């Protein structure tokens, strides 16, 4: 995924996070930046995933009443854990993404709440209830979003990658023939 594309997708996800709460409060349970982070981490792009996690977390923190850096920390760590799992286990199957998204949401919430409690800033909402709603909303919307990306963007990019490899192989072979 190109860096420009990542920047655009991340910006859109942050704007959605900002706007949807204004429209209807329950929509704020969907963590759009986290879905982007999970997607990039599943592509096994370590640096991009970690950077996107940090940036997304810090931008949302800057506009929220919580501690600046808590969201950045939780999303960065979540991105690393998913990247680590994706490099060892095959998570290409769309069905496997459901537990991955759920685990990411749970891990992100747990780290966020942990740091706030440790530093004396308890969240203003019931923790377990909010974690559960967030898990359900992010998993459902995230699964659909990743499926859509797979069906549209990812297929084309995979095809392009295949063509590029074939072209490279063809060039090499024609080059060696010329030399002969």
């Amino acid at each position, binding site marked *: 995924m190109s860096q420009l594309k990542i920047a655009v997708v991340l910006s859109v996800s942050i*704007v959605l*996070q*900002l*706007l949807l*709460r*204004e*429209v209807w*409060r329950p929509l*704020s*349970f969907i963590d759009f930046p986290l879905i982007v982070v999970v997607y990039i981490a599943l592509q096994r792009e370590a640096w991009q995933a*970690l*950077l996107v*996690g*940090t940036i997304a*977390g*810090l*931008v*949302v*923190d*800057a*506009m*929220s*009443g*919580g*501690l*600046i*850096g*808590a*969201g*950045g*920390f939780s999303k*960065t*760590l979540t991105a690393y854990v998913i990247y680590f799992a994706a490099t060892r286990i095959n998570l290409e199957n769309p069905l496997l993404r459901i537990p991955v998204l759920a685990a990411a949401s749970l891990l992100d919430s747990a780290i*966020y*709440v942990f*740091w*706030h409690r440790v*530093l*004396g*800033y*308890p*969240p*203003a*909402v*019931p*923790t377990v209830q*909010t974690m559960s*709603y*967030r898990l359900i909303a992010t998993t459902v919307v995230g699964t659909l979003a990743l499926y859509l990306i797979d069906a549209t963007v990812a297929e084309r990019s995979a095809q392009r990658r295949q063509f590029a490899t074939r072209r490279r192989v063809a060039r090499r072979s024609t080059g060696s023939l010329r030399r002969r």
Partner: protein
Amino acid sequence: MTLLVTNLIVMAVDARDADGRQKVLRVWTQTFASPLQNASSKATGATSGFFQQIWHFRSTAAENEQLKQRLIEMETELHTARGAAVENERLRALLHLNEQSDIKNIPARVIARDPSVWFNTITINRGSSSGVEVNMPVVTPGGIVGRVITVSPWASQVMLITDEKAGAGAVVGQLGSGALGSVRGRADLGVALIEMRYVSGLEKVEVGDYVMTTGQDGIYPPGLNVGRVVEVKNGTATQAHQIYIQPGAQLDRLEEVAVLLYHPPPRSLPEQTPTSPEKSRR
């Protein structure tokens, strides 16, 4: 690892600033974030307006073309007029609040709500350039909303009264009544209710009683409406009442608020204890 440590340092710096003090890091981030929040607030208004238009269009689809067109025009006009009337009423109420009290106030518009689900702060479009300071009370004609926790030049962040860390000294009934206590939010109650503590079990408290600020917290001036008692778990001579209050301000639907430019009177220092004769002999 570097990114994690950086986040940890930022978090520690932000947490170090105690409550009631200006948070340097937060001021900077808010200065840059407020234009985005302002723009998103306007965009949300435009989007919901667009969907409302579609809704109006759908509801009149069965009628003939000419009447439908006329109806849409009429409804749009009526909707605009109603919106203007409601806004006018709210602003008039804020103005009335200004006339009513000796404390000067600044009307402000809510430009953003907390994007994370964990906190209930709001951001208003007035900052230090308008004279807003940290810990100033924010109110609506219905009652108190909360206090300012961060001020940047053009925006401020407000902690709602329903937050666990946002307490206020309050009294049930009129000022001078003995039913004194403190109100604060509780995570499990959400924005719908707040809890009042430390009211003596010997005081008479009933559902429907009004709760006012006492001014003892050093943030809110005395005599402001907090809300109305909706539930009382009666205490005893040794146990305080457990009182639940419905906030007077509609905290989930805030659009315009007023920041009171209130500076609480300085607290008198406790008298010095007399030195003991033994110490003075030494």
